[in-house]
Structures are given as C-alpha cells and as structure tokens.
C-alpha cells in the first residue's frame, strides 16, 4: 500500500519540530528515515501514525485519509513498532501478541480460531513459539522487541512503521528484526540509526535534519560523505566493503 505524507508541519509550543516534510512510500518498498538524535524522525513518524496531530499537511494511505479517519480504521492498515514498550502490568507473550487483533475486532467480539492461527503464524515468524506463556516483563530487550513485532504482524498491516526498532539490540537481533520485516513483503517506513543497516535493507532513504528533509534518494545517492557529515557533524569516508560488496562507512577520519 502506498503512503503519501505531504507538507507536514508540527509545532510544539513555539518550536517548529517538523518543517514542510514530505515522505512517499511506494507499494512494498522499504523506506528508511535517517538523521541525528532529535532531528525530528520520531515526531515525523508520530504525525503520520496519528499519535501527534500535525498543524498542517496531509497523510494518505492508499485512498484512506489518515488524519481524518478514526484510529481504528487506520490501525487496520497501518502497524507501528514503537520505541517505548514498557508497562507496569504483565501479560503473557501470547496475550500480548493477541492484542494485535484489536483493530479487526468489534468491542464485544471474542477471538476466533483464525485469530489464534494468525497469532501462531506471527509467533513462528518471530521465532517466539517457545515463549508463548512467558511473562512479557521478564523478557530481554531484544525478545520484547520481537514480541512487539509479532503483535504488529498480527495486525496484518499493509504498511508498517518502525521507530528505531533495533535500538539497544545486539547485532544478531538487529538483523533478525529487519530481515523478518523485509520478508513480510509489505510497505515499510523505518527510522534507523545504523547507516550500514540502512544500506542493506532500504530501497529508498530520506535524510532528516532540523525537521526538514535534507536529502532523499537511493541509499548510494543519499549516503555520500558530504551528506553524512552534514547530518551527523562527523567526518566520514565511504568505501565499498570488500566482503559484502556494499557501501561501508569510516567515521572520524
């Protein structure tokens, strides 16, 4: 499903956090959002998935006007793996994942056999079958993130938004999470910190600086030494990694 977010403006108090940002995601495209901490990546994503209301601009998911539709309607097509998933109560992993069916359920409808099959499939994809009855709060950061991903898969979205999904995760989990998302074959918009991961997984990149889209294009076009330097204020040289044959980055040289 295509996402078209046009000319978004977000103001908090007097500060303008997002200035005239437009983002497009084509059908089944994996689009990355890069930029330094505090540049407005999360805010931009939040204004797309209705957690924040932008002052102006429009967001369309296919034909669906996201900003004017109900949360329920939007959540049937759009899934989000957020940054903070702490809570003060405990659920089992399976209960947590089952909550992903909420958008497709009426208030009084109970979960049917096919809902459990969808949950089963998501647990398999995220390799969480053995975690079913484990308590969510007892899991490690990487496991928690996989549970949230499973919950989002269960939502059966046509577009998935990920807000720094690999934060605090070790290398193996970073790869696991992103590969799992890539295999879903749906449109993805993900804020990422690791540029090499961005090169590996993204079909298209948007670079955000001070609330504006600084550059966009294919990863090789965007990730030039000049752009990286401008974004992160650090000296950087790029090279082709002899082993992976992909773009690599050498910082501080």
């Amino acid at each position, binding site marked *: 499903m295509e996402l078209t977010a046009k000319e978004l403006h977000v103001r908090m108090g007097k500060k303008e956090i997002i200035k005239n940002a437009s983002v497009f995601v084509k059908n089944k495209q994996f689009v990355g959002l890069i930029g330094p901490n505090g540049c407005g990546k999360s805010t931009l994503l939040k204004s797309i998935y209705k957690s924040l209301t932008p002052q102006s601009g429009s967001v369309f998911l296919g034909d669906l006007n996201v900003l004017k539709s109900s*949360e329920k309607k939007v959540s049937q097509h759009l899934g989000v793996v957020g940054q903070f998933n702490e809570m*003060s109560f405990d659920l089992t992993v399976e209960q947590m994942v089952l909550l992903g069916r909420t958008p497709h359920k009426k208030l009084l409808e109970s979960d049917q056999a096919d809902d459990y099959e969808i949950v089963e499939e998501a647990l398999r994809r995220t390799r969480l079958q053995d975690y079913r009855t484990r308590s969510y709060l*007892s899991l490690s950061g990487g496991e928690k993130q996989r549970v949230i991903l499973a919950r989002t898969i269960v939502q059966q979205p046509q577009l998935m938004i990920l807000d720094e999904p690999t934060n605090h995760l070790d290398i193996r989990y970073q790869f696991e999470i992103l590969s799992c998302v890539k295999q879903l074959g749906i449109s993805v918009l993900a804020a990422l910190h690791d540029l090499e991961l961005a090169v590996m997984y993204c079909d298209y990149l948007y670079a955000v600086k001070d609330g504006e889209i600084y550059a966009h294009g294919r990863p090789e076009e965007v990730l030039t030494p000049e752009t990286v330097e401008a974004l992160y204020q650090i000296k950087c040289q790029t090279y082709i990694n002899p082993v992976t044959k992909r773009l690599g980055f050498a910082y501080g040289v």
Partner: protein
Amino acid sequence: MVKHRVRSDRIGYFYFPIILFLLFLIALSAVYSVSIGQVHIPFRQSMNILLHVLTNGRLGSPDAVGNESYFNIIYQIRMPRVIFALLIGMGLSLCGTVMQAVVQNPLADPYIIGISSGASLGATIAILIGFGASAFFANFGVAFGAFVGAVITSAAVLLLSSIGGKATSVKLVLSGVVVGAFCSSLSSLVIFFANNAEGVQQVAFWSMGSLAPSSWDKVPILTIVVLLGCGIFLFQHRVLNTMLLGDESAVTLGINLSAFRKIYMVLAALITGTMVAYSGTIGFVGLIVPHICRGLFGADHKRLMPATLLLGGLFLIWADILSRTLVPNVDLPIGIITSVIGSPLFIYMIVKKGYNFGG
C-alpha cells in the same frame, strides 16, 4: 486448527472450576453470615429461611423455621447486610481494577481520584452543618451529602486533568491528590469550627466505613448501580487490556484511550460514589483484591474481571462476619477490618520475591 488457547501460567484450565467454586463459597458464606451474630441461629434454619425468602416461598419451609423472631432477624437485619457486603465488595474490586487500568498504575484504588475525601467532605457538611430546613434534602442526609461530594470531586479531578490537552494518567493521579488534599482541609475546617461533639464523633464513625446502616430500602439502588457497572465492565476487556499498554501503543492498535479513560472514570466515580454514600470509605478492598487476582489469573481482563468481582464479594462478606463477631456484642466498622487484613497482606505481596504487579 490451533488448539492452543491463551491462558495464564498458574491457573490454566482450572479457571472455570475455580469460578464455580468461588460462587459456591459465596453462597455458603452468605448463609453462614446470616446465621451468626448476637443471636445465633442454626445453619439449617438459616438456610431454610434464606431459601424461603429467595424463592418467594416455593422452597424451604418457614414452618421448619418455627421461630418468628429468627425470621425477622435474618430477613430484616442480616440479609440486607450480606447483600450490601457482597455488592460493595464486588463494586470496590470492580472500580479498583478499572482505576488501575485507567491510570496504568497497579497501586491505584477506587478512591484515587479524590472520591473518598470528597465524600467525607459531603458527609461532614451534612452531619455538622446540615442541608437546612428543606425536608427534601434532610431526608437523604448523610448519604446524599457523601454522594454529591464524591461526584463533585471526581468531576473536578477530571476537569483539572484535562486542562491543556489530553488527560494522561499522571495528570489524573496528581489532580486526585490535589483535590483530595483540598477537600480534606475543608473537612477539617468544618470540624474545627463545629461546636458539636456528637456530630464530630458521627463524622469519625462514618469515615471508618461501616455496613451497619444497610437496610432493604437501600438495596435496590445499590444493586442496580453495582450490577449495571459489573455488566458493562465485564465486556470491556479488550479496551482495558489495551489500556495496560499505554496511550502510545493503544493509538496504534486503534483505540483512543483518552476518550475511554473519561467514560470509565465517570462510571467508576458514580459506582464508587453510590457505595461510599451508603457505607463510608472501606479501604484496601479495591486495591488488594485486584492484586491477588492478577497474581492468580494474570492481567488479561477477560479472565481477571469475573474472578475479581467474586473474590471481592467473598472478601467483604468475611470482613463483615469478622466485624460482627471479633469483639462480642460490638459491631466494629468494617473499614478497620479490611485495613487490618489488607495492609499486612499487601506488604507480604510486595516483599514476596518475584511479585511483579500483575502476573
């Protein structure tokens, strides 16, 4: 076809037998409760009288009962009291569970939004100042004052917490604290200037919480309010579960918490207000019962809610039995009993290793 069903680790497939067992215990405890007291009435006779009353004379024979005064004691005094204990226990646990989900804090109780101090203020004013000569208000008296106090404070808390955007759980709790403190100081002011020792004692007694004022004429309103509340919230498990995740995640699952939070709080405030008006503030039930049930059944509200309601009712029936029998010939305020049982239990649960607020 996947056979597996969501279940909590500890109870698992024993859930329904446990619910049935709780129902059975409640019935048994109710009969026991009406048979004991200052006049001891044998269990068999109590059961006969209860059956007779409950089935409108079809079952249980009043002839077997024989003693007219037994019938009157049970029917006029003890039955409404057991019904009160059951309903208020259910209602407090219900509102406790809902409030804990609403403010996303397992330490919340039904009084968290200032309801108890508001009701106390209303009752204090009703007792010490009165509503004047107007016969209409005088009729309702303390209960009316308490209810109005409870409703006004919770409205104030809701209003205060929604100033400047969405009502978040932190704002709700803080507003509750502020409004509660304000009401308490007003109550103190009224008590300080009241030249009425008997009235002051009455206020103190009221604030301890007691089931002594139960009577048949109050049963219908309480029954309707509590059962209606239970009926509504038993089917809100989907939203309540989503509430546990917090605002951010709830939105992405299609649920706008801010709206539900307000509706739930208004409902919980009305239920709690009614209960407080009739029985004063009975502490710890709404905090401890949802806790115990979460530990046993997990935090999934679909399973949690029915169990919490039943355990809450059972708990208060027994607290009431204790309050009537612990000291011979004295009817202790039930609020003292629930706190005496509740606080050590709560400390134990916190200290107990591995307890993590919910499962």
